[in-house]
């Protein structure tokens, strides 16, 4: 980290150019933006969109994925559709959503969900396919019932897939949200970045990026890592 910062500093001083400000200049702008309330506002808006679209995609995707993973015929039918949706460029869905449903919040969320959903479905489908049949038989024999079976037999087996879908999902969703905001929203990080781009304000772009990366890192340390450790506690 220190090495990276000093390299950045050295390069910035050497180039002495507006397109690469020094770390100190970026930190200064970051601080000012936080104080002015601009950054917290736009970051908050983007995070809200991230939470909503991420939750919808995860809930819907896990349900569909588990069903497909357990029904061979359904899966054979939808497999091609999945591949198609996996490969439609994000930009296309975003533009279509805006054109068809208007420049609205719900259209923005929908566009993100459509982009994320196929990935979640595929991840959970693989998880559901790999479920241990012997343990499911045991649960059936001892009459665990649906709720107990899901909580104690199925979910622990899906846990690694949940974590992987979460991590890759957060990364993917936030990148798509920025494009969505850039194209059709009047607030959020994507909108701000577009303004800075028009002004050639690289320092502000970097400041916003750092703020977002910090939030994602905090999420990783405070939520994902502990969840990971909890899920793995039984391993030798």
């Amino acid at each position, binding site marked *: 980290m220190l090495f990276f910062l000093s390299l950045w500093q050295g390069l910035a001083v050497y180039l002495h150019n507006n397109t690469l400000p020094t770390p100190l200049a970026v930190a200064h702008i970051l601080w000012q933006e936080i104080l002015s309330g601009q950054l917290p506002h736009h970051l908050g808006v983007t995070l809200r969109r991230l939470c909503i679209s991420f939750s919808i995609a995860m809930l819907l995707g896990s349900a569909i994925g588990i069903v497909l993973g357990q029904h061979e015929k359904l899966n054979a039918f939808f497999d091609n559709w999945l591949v198609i949706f996996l490969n439609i460029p994000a930009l296309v869905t975003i533009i279509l959503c805006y054109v068809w449903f208007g420049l609205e919040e719900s259209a923005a969320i929908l566009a993100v969900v459509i982009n994320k959903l196929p990935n979640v479905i595929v991840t959970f489908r693989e998880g559901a396919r790999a479920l241990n049949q012997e343990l499911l038989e*045991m649960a059936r*024999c*001892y009459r665990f019932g649906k709720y107990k079976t899901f909580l*104690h037999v199925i979910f*622990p087996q899906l846990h690694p897939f949940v974590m992987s879908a979460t991590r890759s999902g957060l990364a993917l969703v936030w990148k798509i949200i920025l494009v969505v905001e850039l194209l059709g929203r009047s607030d959020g990080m994507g909108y701000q970045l577009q303004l800075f781009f028009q002004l050639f304000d690289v320092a502000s772009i970097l400041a916003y990026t750092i703020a977002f990366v910090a939030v994602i890192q905090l999420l990783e340390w405070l939520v994902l890592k502990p969840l990971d450790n909890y899920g793995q*506690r039984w*391993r030798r």
Partner: protein
Amino acid sequence: MTDIHIDIKQKTYAAKGSAKAHLAIENFQLSLESHQFVCLVGSSGCGKTTLLNSIAGLDTDFVGEIIVGEQHIKPKIGYVFQNPRLLPWRTVRENIELALENVTQSSEIVDNLLQIMQLNTVQAVYPERLSLGMSRRVAIIRAFAINPDVLLMDEPFVSLDPPTARQVRSLLIQLWQQRPHTVLFVTHDLREAIALADKLVFLSPPPMQIISEIPVLIPRNQRDDESVIESFRQQLINEYPAINRLL
């Protein structure tokens, strides 16, 4: 009353991939009286596990019918599988308690069983840290703890060391006498079968059929004596040479 009536006309495993269709069981009729202890003896791969799975209701894909207990009352079935089948992400105690209908009511029973099986010190341990023998004992406790009407055991003592196996065996008999239930015990160890069973059922290689049903009339209190078991075994082999080929 939990009598068991088995009448399997045919059980076939369908062809899959390069494997051909396989006729596992054919014309198999067996009736067990309530509270009887029956040992199924046959070579490995003869279809014993398939039979137990069918009785447990895990495999319903066969021609024929199996009636366990009275109609409309689902009997409680304790099943000790060939592998322990414990949930690796739940502790020993949780694994046992998950099978119970009422955890608080049965906690004393569980404590007692853990004590007898010498597992009370590992209650909070995850199964991956246990030896195979210990895992097997946990699986046995799980089956006992639900107070089953029918107990199905699929070579449950295979990897236990002889002293532990002897101990668990006598515990099994003790528990069975305390609260009689119908036991179907699969083994290919004839001595073990003689020591435990009211009735021995010898099974042919696939398609599995019954070769002979032989009652064991040795009184329960004499079964700890290995010479008694051994002489019964010799007598069996002399009378039924076909048995020897199975073992």
